[in-house]
């Protein structure tokens, strides 16, 4: 019983940050039709920026609670600086090209950002442990869990609801949905499509950076964090269906639980359990669990 609970809670924690990251990925795909390999690099940027920002708040002797604000600001800063640079400076030259070619453009971006982060932050690991103890510990049965993990679950819920509400209940959200449906018709109705692209791309980067910033306290931030995250978040959006918010949530839960089950029950399978699930879903529902099947274009 205790073991089952541990598996569930571990899976839920893993799923929560993964959901935040994958939500950004699925949003960018939904609007811009780009499967962004560099998404993991934005995650890494968020984690590094959080390390620097939290470091500053600590050196200023500010209250430890402010480190949470610092992490949020780190994600905002990454989105505000990187989104205009990459979207206006690079991606817009490739819109409308083949989807696989766009994957390669983002692969190039990933290669570039790997070295840029190394140049800015060096190759040594950073540790951001301060915020991790902010929420204390919670005892459930015989096990003790870290409160921060539960805070992360709450954050994921808030982010998910906010994005859902923003897309479905606001005017600008409706405009985004119109662009997703058909960019051409939306443009002819007077929608500024490039502004929508820019906005969606910025929100996508923000979500990646937010995921990175809030997982920074749980990991050591070092070169290579981006590489693992990309493929796992790909697995999430592929399982759930590209471009679907519900899909990202369910995909994150499935991946989180699969990984947690693997870690606790059969550690040998930890490294590939997620990809086995992804391969199985692709085999039986290539469009993902939450994607309507599209008619083939002639």
């Amino acid at each position, binding site marked *: 019983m205790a073991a089952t609970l541990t598996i569930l809670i571990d899976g839920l924690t893993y799923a929560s940050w993964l959901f935040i990251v994958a939500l950004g990925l699925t949003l960018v795909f939904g609007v811009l039709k780009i499967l962004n390999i560099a998404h993991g690099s934005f995650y890494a940027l968020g984690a590094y920026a959080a390390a620097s920002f939290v470091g500053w708040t600590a050196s200023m002797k500010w209250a430890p609670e402010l480190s949470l604000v610092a992490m949020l600001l780190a994600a905002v800063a990454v989105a505000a600086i990187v989104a205009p640079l990459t979207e206006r400076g690079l991606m817009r030259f490739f819109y409308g090209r083949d989807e696989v070619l766009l994957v390669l453009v983002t*692969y190039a971006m*990933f290669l570039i950002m790997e070295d840029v982060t190394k140049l800015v932050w060096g190759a040594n690991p950073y540790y951001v442990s301060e915020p991790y103890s902010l929420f204390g510990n919670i005892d459930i049965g015989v096990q003790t869990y870290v409160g921060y993990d539960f805070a992360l679950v709450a954050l994921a819920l808030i982010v998910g609801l906010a994005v859902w509400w923003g897309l479905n209940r606001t005017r600008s959200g409706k405009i985004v949905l119109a662009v997703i449906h058909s960019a051409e018709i939306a443009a002819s109705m007077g929608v500024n499509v490039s502004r929508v692209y820019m906005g969606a791309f910025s929100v996508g980067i923000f979500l990646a950076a937010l995921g990175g910033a809030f997982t920074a306290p749980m990991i050591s931030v070092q070169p290579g964090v981006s590489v693992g995250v990309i493929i796992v978040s790909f697995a999430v959006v592929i399982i759930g269906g590209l471009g679907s918010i519900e899909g990202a949530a369910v995909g994150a839960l499935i991946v989180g639980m699969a990984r947690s089950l693997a870690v606790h029950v059969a550690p040998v399978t930890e490294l*590939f359990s997620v*990809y086995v699930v992804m391969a199985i879903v692709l085999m039986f529902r290539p469009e993902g669990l939450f994607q309507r099947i599209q008619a083939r274009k002639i």
Partner: protein
Amino acid sequence: MIQTETAVGHGRTVALGLAAFVLLALAGLAMPKWLTFLLTMAAANGLVSLGIVGLMRGGVVPFGQGMMLALGGYAAALAFNKLGVTDALLLALGGGVVATLAAAPFAPLLSRYRGIFFAMLTLALSMVTYGLLMKLSALGGSDGFNLGRPTLFGQVLADAWVGYTLYVLTIALATVMALLARVYFDSTRGLVTLAVRENELRVEYLGGSVRQAMTINFILAAFCGGLGGALAVMSLGHVEPTFSFWTTSGEFVFVAILAGWQSVAAVFIASTVLEVVRSFSSAYFPNTWQLALGLFLLFVIRFLPKGIGSLWMRGSTR
């Protein structure tokens, strides 16, 4: 798509290929060791990318071809260490055959997928292979394992000649595969593949089988990848799970994109370019070589979308 390449054209291609092989083999005698090693790796890796180009002609890009490299590499290394097979040619062909056999069951399944779904499914398969190889302690886990010096046709290779012999073997096999690839690309099925890229439905209406073409291309790509993997591992003397990691596959795709799908020779030129960039930048700018690679890739996609092969293949395929 109109084929203008004729039997005469192939005669010229074969002559050019053989001439290139003889020139490279002779030049190898005068080359420093690091250069023959670099060209060996370029030719071996080029074989993997050749398989990707074969698939790209049909409009799909696999993002897990590192799996074939790993399958071929591990098969050759295991055959050497456990079965006592030491002949380099046998090991190379064995690597190709094992990769083919391992990939064949997935080929009919993969032939149904297109675009990013094809890329993602191949990626998932290669990452499963990576995870398995990392965890199998019998195969050395994350460290991989070493293999000794192979022989060739029963001859023990002396210290001074082992590098050169493997170099000649690798470029010989690469030449053979390159020529066979050219013949295949210009055959009926090869042209059906090109037509699939343009319009699948029309191919089906005209009586061609899209899935059959895709299945065969995937199996051929597996053979090329396995062959390249076995050759690379023999020169490296070492095999490890990162062969199957997605970033390795990414480099092969990089070479395939740089080469474009028109010219076979371009694949090996692009592969050499990558090896040169890799060795020089990791020696002189160890922290910015991926940056250089990324900028280069963007440049190619933006200004040479059909790859370097399009620079000299303009006339032959429209």
